[in-house]
């Protein structure tokens, strides 16, 4: 049985405790936090500690910013790395497993004009490896994991497929970096999502779920049994964290997911 989590902004309720109550009733096993910039996530430490004390299960945080460690701009890159390090520290303090980030999001797409990014592929790789080395080392010290998330080609031009993330992670030589897979992006980028999961089994650390149309699982046309079956096959023991848009009544949509995933083989 695979465990499920819902990102906090999807859950009704004013406090993490109230959200957790709803989540449990709906069949979730955890909440995935969202980490905003400007040290906002660190400023929530008291709230998070209290929630942890009250039994809220919060294994992971997913970054919620507009610049990332692969940014073209040096200052933005520096800030993104500092923010991620802080988020890794905070998630460690509340007993979590790790923090997820893409290389970039919304910065450049080779599929959209002007098609050629301002930085070469070799420079991209240097920037990503430098950032990953610093973040991975920090994660290692904190005893948590950095999850690198491949995004689809329209959202990021550097890391789209699991094999690209795996290649970068292997190059760092750090056990504290793993791939954070996302069913929606994989559906666009992987020739065979289930086979990709098997091929990179040893490096998969986290999984986020949404359907083919970015809505909640069950609202699109992904072959969930095959995707979840592959995760079972590799002995994945993390959570399936719901990160999606919602269609239909939002509360009912969120409520429907654990049962849907279970029916689909989770």
């Amino acid at each position, binding site marked *: 049985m695979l465990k499920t989590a819902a990102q906090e902004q999807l859950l009704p309720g004013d406090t993490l405790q109230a959200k957790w109550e709803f989540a449990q009733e709906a069949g979730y096993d955890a909440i995935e936090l969202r980490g905003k910039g400007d040290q906002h996530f660190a400023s929530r430490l008291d709230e998070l500690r209290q929630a942890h004390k009250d039994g809220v299960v919060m294994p992971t945080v997913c970054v919620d910013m507009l610049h990332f460690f692969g940014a073209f701009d040096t200052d933005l890159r520096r800030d993104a790395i500092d923010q991620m390090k802080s988020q890794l520290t905070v998630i460690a303090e509340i007993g979590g497993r790790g923090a997820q980030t893409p290389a970039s999001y919304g910065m450049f797409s080779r599929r959209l004009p002007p098609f050629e990014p301002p930085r070469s592929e070799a420079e991209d790789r240097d920037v990503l490896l430098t950032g990953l080395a610093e973040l991975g080392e920090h994660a290692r010290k904190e005893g948590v994991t950095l999850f690198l998330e491949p995004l689809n080609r329209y959202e990021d031009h550097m890391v789209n497929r699991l094999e690209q993330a795996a290649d970068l992670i292997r190059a760092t030589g750090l056990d504290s970096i793993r791939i954070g897979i996302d069913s929606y992006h994989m559906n666009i980028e992987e020739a065979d999502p289930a086979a990709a999961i098997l091929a990179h*089994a*040893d490096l998969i650390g986290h999984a986020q779920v949404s359907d083919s149309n970015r809505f909640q699982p069950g609202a699109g046309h992904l072959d969930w049994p095959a995707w979840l*079956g592959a995760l079972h096959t590799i002995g994945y023991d993390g959570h399936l964290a719901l990160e999606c848009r919602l269609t239909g009544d939002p509360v009912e949509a969120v409520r429907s997911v654990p049962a849907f995933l279970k029916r689909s083989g989770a």
Partner: protein
Amino acid sequence: MKSLLDRPAPTDAAALTLRRGAARVLIDNWTGTSTVPSRTLYPHQWSWDSAFIAIGLRHLSARRAQRELESLLAGQWADGRIPHIVFNPALPYDAYFPSPDFWRSSAAGRSAGAPAAAETSGIVQPPVHALAAWLVHRADPAESRRRSFLHRVVPRLSAWHNYLLARRDLGGAGLAAVVHPWEPGMDNSPCWDEALRRIEPAPRDAFQRADLDHGHPADRPTDLDYGRYVRLAADYRDAGYDDGAARFDFAVEDPCFNALLIVSERALAAMARETGADATVHTARAEALTRRLVARLWDERAGIFRARDVTTDALVEERSVSGLVPLLVPDLPPHIVDRLLDTLTGPSFTAPATGLAPSYDLRGHAFDAHRYWRGPAWFNTAWLIHQGLRTHALDAQAAALRSAFVTEAGATGFAEYVDPATGRPRGARHFSWTAALTLDLLCAEFEEPTP
């Protein structure tokens, strides 16, 4: 096998570990539209392999299982035949022999209705497909209905059975005959030896075998047999695959083939009921076929079903696992069920090192523990016998066979077949139908009677 089952984290429950290993084989061998039987030995799509694979794949992904059958049926001929191989056009011709340029289906089979685009073989394999379609439908009826699975496959499966009953009733008694040793799926069974002796082999330099590139010669059919296979296939091809015009030097009514036709007719009846269509034609056919199977192929003295050589109109005096598979048929007379069970559990089919029935009589004159269908124990026939035991409520025997099946499948790395004397794996490893049928035995929790 160790790496397959242990990565990335070992688990405590053996069944769970085995289930993961089986699923891994099926994911690895999936090509996007179908599953290759083996990445090394069999790189195209095989007819009865796909049916057995779909039966297990339904537990991993009902959609993939449906696709497996749909992609095979896309290679169906207009006369209804489902070819035994649908070739992957992306592979070079020398990836397998006989290759597309041997069969020349789109040219030589044009008047028989071979597809213009897909290249296929021109012969068939046992009709497990309707049974598989029914089981695939049952695994996820909602997904099946959403994709109109039954509405799309049932007319094709009916046409397939019509072909077998109309064009292949070569004995004139209402059973389907096979016209090549590859058609019953048990290529080099001793059951075909006598009929094959009448065939002039193709010269050894007229063909280049590909099965020996990956398979061990001692595990595979001999060159002499292969020359006869080539001769029969070439003659059929040169007659335009026209069952009315071809002169069949080899024609046999096989018990496994016809038993599967019976069960598949029953599956068509079940699918007809599901879609609101008339089931009576299929029910009536199944009943008539059952009567003919018993009348023509049952050997009361030997306690086993025999193949009938249509050319000589005589039963073939060999005992093979094919003769035990009719246990699948629900309406068998009870005394035949009893006799079959005696034979199955008797000295001819109780092997020292495997719980699976060997493909050929352990005490038979032609027994060979290594060579393909002349002795080795196969997992697909074991699955069919298991279903047969359950059909007749022989639950203790079914449970013992199930246990042996899953244990040996795991221990042999999902081998193609097993040496009955030593239990050692033979042929391909990570073999798709072995993994698929293991998954089925591990996952089919609901009470699922033979249709």
